[in-house]
């Protein structure tokens, strides 16, 4: 197995196992490598000739040679398989059974006394204690140093499969009037599809009812466009972001625009010789965030970019004053170590969560080397290690990764931000207006020998009371949760839906747990739909709707009104499954997902209306199938790409057709009585830009009666009632 330069240590035991298995597989496959010799048609000379021909004829990519491909249809040789299977038994046995290394790990694990062996979390007392704790965790796997690349973690929100929240015209807690020019009334307009009312989420597009804000990640810039006249949307300004940071997403509230970016590790500043800017790792003092130049990070680059992001990079919040939309001014930057996990904006408070691991580059005498650091332009701090007292050690931390969470006031810059940290690795977060919950994965290796460690989830709870952020406790539940929508807080109770992988069989099973304000488990529903996995969840007050799937899609309607006795009230079995549930009203849910055949193979996109007015009897009242089976939509895994407007009775989502080589934005009219009908489809022929195939940048939003479809640098205005295109703006011009 190849290793790469610049590998660094990753001390996650899980990573170790992956490494070992991958190694075994790689060795086995190496024997087959020699049978996979490329033909002459792919030789470098042939390729050069091909490229030259391409240039001359200016043709597109060659046809995929479909005829050849479909020509032969040899069946899989089952007989051979069974006859050699027996012969292979012993061979496989020797590959997969106890190997010296694994036995060693097993005994190693049993000898290690768990840190934080108490059931209660421990607050850091001083840096020495933290240092020792980190070393102890690392020591568990020190001889299995598995090195990971130092990468630019271009992480979007790490929440996959995130269905949107209850879409409604929520009152923004902030002062929208700030944004308004000439005191005009704001028309109804689209907002980011968020999960919880009053809790904003970041996105690459923002709309404040007058201006459209478009973040272009690849080009490192944000453009502001005035959409007051939808026929004539005008670009008013552009913010260029530093080349050595990677912008992820943003917020716009009042007269502030807040960008979240991956940035280089804060420690690289400290490690620069004498902090002098004359060195090759020059420190550009004039840059507001004081980060080094691009060149200094080039040496650490490995894949596709600079050495920013990754768990040992940092994340920067840059706040811009956009009181004058034509002249945005950077007002402040705040940076915390770690790669971006997620964020939320509640009122004027931004909550930033990152995952940080410095991979063993520790110096006992320098706390900055083993705890997360922060820098703040407003309070003139640079690479400050967070206080030991702000760090919590939970019971049995599995890895020396820190979850770092900061509460930052985006208006009162003088308010000192509060940063807390807990050892663990955030996988998803959920926030209400009062509390932030972070789900972290825990693998239990005590039952190691059957290679099926059970996984469970540790939930870390932080109170957001008083404008700060304080860790209030944690709890463990079986199974793992998919995303932010698997969690919910209601009437002080915390609810979470998980899928657990049983130890001895491949059967998964699904659960809903209810915890009280102290995170004590008061009720649980376990073992639902064995053999299936949760694909989407929607908590709505006293009810929870859970979609599981393996071959058919049960939609479970679960009554949570008695926290101690959650009960499945009704089930609906249909083909296909929804990746994504969106409430239309209290009694109606929209499901967006796939249709599937009875073997469980997906067959194209599908929209469903579910009537849940009678929980004992949920019904699928309407559906719409999309015939193009090669069509995919980003909205299935990113709720922010899903547009829902009750005002206009419409849904919008981007899609890509692989067979037909185009991407499009689709608008569907919705009517609870009549179902779905296609309102319009805006097509974009595939360009050579491969990014468009994933539609990662396309969003739809609206102001009044105009739909704006925004794709990287293009804003198209569509009149909603007629679906006529009334204007186009190319932001690069």
């Amino acid at each position, binding site marked *: 197995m190849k290793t790469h330069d610049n590998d660094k240590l990753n001390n996650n035991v899980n990573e170790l196992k*992956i490494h070992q298995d991958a190694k075994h597989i790689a060795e086995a496959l190496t*024997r*087959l490598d020699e049978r996979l010799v490329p033909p002459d048609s792919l030789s470098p000379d042939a390729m050069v000739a091909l490229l030259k021909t391409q240039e001359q004829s200016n043709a597109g*990519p060659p046809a995929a040679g479909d005829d050849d*491909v479909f020509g032969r249809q040899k069946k899989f040789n089952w007989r051979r398989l069974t006859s050699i299977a027996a012969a292979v038994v012993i061979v496989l046995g020797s590959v997969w059974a106890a190997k010296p290394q694994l036995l060693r790990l097993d005994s190693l694990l049993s000898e290690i006394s768990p840190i934080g062996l108490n059931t209660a979390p421990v607050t850091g007392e001083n840096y020495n204690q933290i240092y020792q704790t980190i070393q102890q965790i690392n020591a568990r796997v020190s001889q299995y140093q598995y090195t990971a690349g130092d990468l630019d973690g271009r992480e979007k929100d*790490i929440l996959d499969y995130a269905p949107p929240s209850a879409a409604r015209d929520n009152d923004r807690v902030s002062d929208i009037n700030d944004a308004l020019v000439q005191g005009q009334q704001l028309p109804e307009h689209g907002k980011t599809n968020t999960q919880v009312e009053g809790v904003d989420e970041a996105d690459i597009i923002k709309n404040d009812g007058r201006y459209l804000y478009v973040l272009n990640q690849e080009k490192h810039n944000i453009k502001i466009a005035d959409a007051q006249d939808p026929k004539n949307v005008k670009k008013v300004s552009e913010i260029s972001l530093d080349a050595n940071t990677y912008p992820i997403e943003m917020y716009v509230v009042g007269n502030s625009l807040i960008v979240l970016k991956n940035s280089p590790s804060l420690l690289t500043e400290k490690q620069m010789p004498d902090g002098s800017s004359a060195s090759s790792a020059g420190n550009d003092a004039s840059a507001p965030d004081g980060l080094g130049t691009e060149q200094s990070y080039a040496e650490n680059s490995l894949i596709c970019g600079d050495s920013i992001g990754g768990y040992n990079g940092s994340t920067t919040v840059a706040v811009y004053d956009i009181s004058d939309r034509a002249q945005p001014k950077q007002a402040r930057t705040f940076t915390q170590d770690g790669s971006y996990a997620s964020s939320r904006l509640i009122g004027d408070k931004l909550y930033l969560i990152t995952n940080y691991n410095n991979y063993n580059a520790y110096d006992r005498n320098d706390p900055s080397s083993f705890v997360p650091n922060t820098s703040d332009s407003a309070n003139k701090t640079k690479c400050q290690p967070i206080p030991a007292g702000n760090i919590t050690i939970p019971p049995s931390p599995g890895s020396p990764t820190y979850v770092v969470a900061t509460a930052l006031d985006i208006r009162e810059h003088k308010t000192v931000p509060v940063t807390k940290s807990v050892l663990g690795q955030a996988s998803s977060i959920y926030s209400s207006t009062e509390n932030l919950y972070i789900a972290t994965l825990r693998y239990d290796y005590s039952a190691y020998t059957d290679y099926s460690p059970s996984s469970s989830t540790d939930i870390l709870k932080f109170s957001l009371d008083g404008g700060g952020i304080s860790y209030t406790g944690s709890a463990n539940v079986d199974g*793992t949760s998919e995303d932010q929508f698997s969690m919910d807080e209601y009437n002080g109770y915390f609810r979470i839906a998980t899928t657990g992988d049983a130890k001895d069989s491949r059967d998964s099973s699904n659960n809903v747990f209810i915890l009280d304000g102290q995170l004590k488990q008061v009720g649980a529903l376990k073992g639902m739909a064995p053999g299936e996995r949760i694909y989407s969840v929607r908590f709505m007050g006293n009810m929870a709707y859970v979609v599981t799937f393996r071959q058919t899609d049960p939609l479970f309607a679960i009554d949570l009104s008695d926290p101690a006795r959650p009960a499945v009230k009704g089930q609906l079995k249909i083909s296909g499954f929804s990746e994504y549930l969106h409430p239309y009203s209290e009694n109606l849910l929209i499901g967006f997902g796939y249709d599937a055949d009875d073997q469980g193979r997906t067959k194209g996109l599908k929209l469903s209306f579910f009537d849940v007015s009678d929980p004992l009897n949920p019904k699928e009242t309407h559906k719409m199938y999309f015939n193009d089976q090669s069509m995919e939509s980003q909205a299935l895994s990113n709720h922010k790409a899903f547009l829902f407007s009750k005002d206009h009775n419409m849904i919008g989502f981007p899609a890509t057709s692989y067979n037909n080589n185009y991407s499009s934005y689709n608008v569907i009219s919705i009517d609870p009585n009549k179902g779905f009908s296609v309102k319009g489809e805006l097509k974009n022929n595939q360009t050579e830009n491969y990014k468009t195939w994933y539609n990662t940048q396309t969003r739809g939003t609206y102001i009044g009666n105009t739909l704006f479809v925004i794709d990287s640098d293009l804003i198209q205005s569509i009149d909603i009632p007629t679906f006529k295109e009334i204007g186009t703006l190319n932001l690069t011009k």
Partner: protein
Amino acid sequence: MKNIPSALIDSAKSGNAESFGELYACIWKDLYRFCCYYLGSKNDAEDVVQDTVIEAYKSLPSLKNEASFRGWIFAIATRQCSRQIKKIKQSRLAVDVDDLFDLHDDTEIGRDTEQSVLIFNAISELKDDARSIVLLSVIEGYSGHEIARILNRPESTCRSILFRSLKKMRMLLDDTQTL
């Protein structure tokens, strides 16, 4: 590929096909092999490698860092493979292992090879996104970190898919023991 002279990349970026050919020569065998494992068919692999090369050549100006060339082109290849899988999914379900690994003419195939074939089959059982993650890890040696970067997906997701997939493969392989 840390020692790529920037002059070579610049030349390739500006449209010099021979320079691009030199870059390609560093990774062409790995690229083909990766596509073979991914798609289970030499014909498909050949098509995809060609498409990848053409796309990479056109998009090369967008690559900022020379040292990342390998990961970058594997990212393109992964997308192309994924796209190809969707295309062929409906029309051809079977992977022809004999054809892929030239197993017809061998009068005696070592046990090791047979075992390897089984492992390959287990990979073919994986769904598209899991397959790309496993292959990038197992064949190309990328870490969870690096895979996340190549696929532009969250690191924790890649790790957990990798973990689950390897586990699933193990179970598939264990199953054959009971036949």
